[in-house]
């Protein structure tokens, strides 16, 4: 087990923690940007997350989700997107006028298409 021997820190490193931007899948981002162009305006203020009822108890965070879409972090995205209740409270807060609710809906749609190889 040369790999274990080389690991002097005493724990196994399974998968890289780094976001590999060059191998990441940006199809979802392209889809969301095309269907909901206001998505590009997010400047990560967290106003939506602060006001979101779904995020108070479970790990759901719209601001972080926007970042995952941009970076092509699809696995992380899947966990997030299902939790939104599409209530639209965040729409009233967003200082950049992002159509937040539609970003979530469009992302869910993109993921479904991705699974069916339609993206």
């Amino acid at each position, binding site marked *: 087990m040369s790999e274990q021997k080389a690991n002097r820190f005493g724990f196994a490193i399974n998968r890289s923690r780094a976001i590999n931007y060059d191998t990441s899948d940006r199809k979802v981002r392209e889809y969301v940007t095309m269907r909901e162009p206001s998505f590009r305006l997010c*400047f*990560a*203020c*967290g*106003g*939506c*997350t*602060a*006001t*979101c009822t779904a*995020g*108070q108890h479970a790990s759901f*965070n719209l*601001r*972080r989700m926007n970042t995952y879409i941009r970076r092509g972090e699809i696995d992380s995205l899947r966990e997030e997107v299902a939790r939104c209740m599409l209530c639209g409270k965040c729409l009233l*807060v*967003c*200082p*950049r*006028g992002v159509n937040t609710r539609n970003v979530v809906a469009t992302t869910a749609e993109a993921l479904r298409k991705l699974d069916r190889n339609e993206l």
Partner: protein
Amino acid sequence: MKEKRKHVIVAGGGVAGMEAAGSLAEMGIRVTLVEKGEDPGGHLLQWHALFPGRRPAEEVRKYLRKRIAHENINVITRTTVEKVRHHGHEIIADLSGGTEERADALIVATGFDLFDAHRKEEYGYGIYDNVITSADLEEMFNGKRVVRADGSVPSRIGFIHCVGSRDEKVNNNHCSKVCCVTAVKQAIEVRKLLPESEVFCFYMDMRMFGPYYEELYRESQEVHNVNYMRGKVSEASVNINNRLVIKVEDTLAGRPLKMELDLMVLMVGMEMSKPGARLAEASGLNTGINRFLESADQHYGTNRSGVAGIFYAGTCTAPMNITDTISHSRSAVEETVRYLGGR
């Protein structure tokens, strides 16, 4: 025959207008300084100590008062410049009250208005007692007493950045530039006045653009223990203990956060002044997408209106600090004098 002495009208007697009037007078030009308020001074009349060095605002006020105490300057107060028009080479300013003033050139120095915090209803200004603005806090500093509405001493104070700026919801996409450093300055002042208190600044980006600003930010952490939290506060409410409760995302931790505050300070932004906007509209002067006056050129013509004989000085063109306002005002004078000489 001696040439008739040149005459310039300055519309607005804040920092920009006072500095312009003083510079022109010094060069032997006759000046009529028209100010809407009771006294010249503009917003500077309200401030206590100035960033970055926290010198008393009175020092700069004194400088400006001396600047306009010149025999070439005629100060008219409680009067608004309503409209500017041309009559041949002459500039005619219509003043409130129906009078008019004739001159060879005019400098617009109508400054800014503070964003009206009532418009961000979710923060409860005018609804909850202990929500105040940065300007209200300056007034408290002037009285040397920072207290809650019931007179008690606040133990936790929060500064909310970008109130009325960078916010599509209130039709202001611009950054007001001075409120970040004002928050840092005020946070330090509060910590010095109330050493037992805890102070938090809620910011989206810390914009420390000027000399010594970043150092002041550093000092606020190193010496005064000011806390910074990155996130836009979405709303405030009041609990049964009559403390404010704010909702924000701690975006660096990636989790929503609730916090009780005793006093909440809204860092209100800068908007084009209403009397300035009226003047622009009546006189056909261009305004930009941020509603401030639009200069003829963004790089080498920020004092030019594009209309002969009319020039711009200070925050009527964009948010700026006192230092930049004074520089801008001096360059407006240079443009004006060049124009007068070339006619």
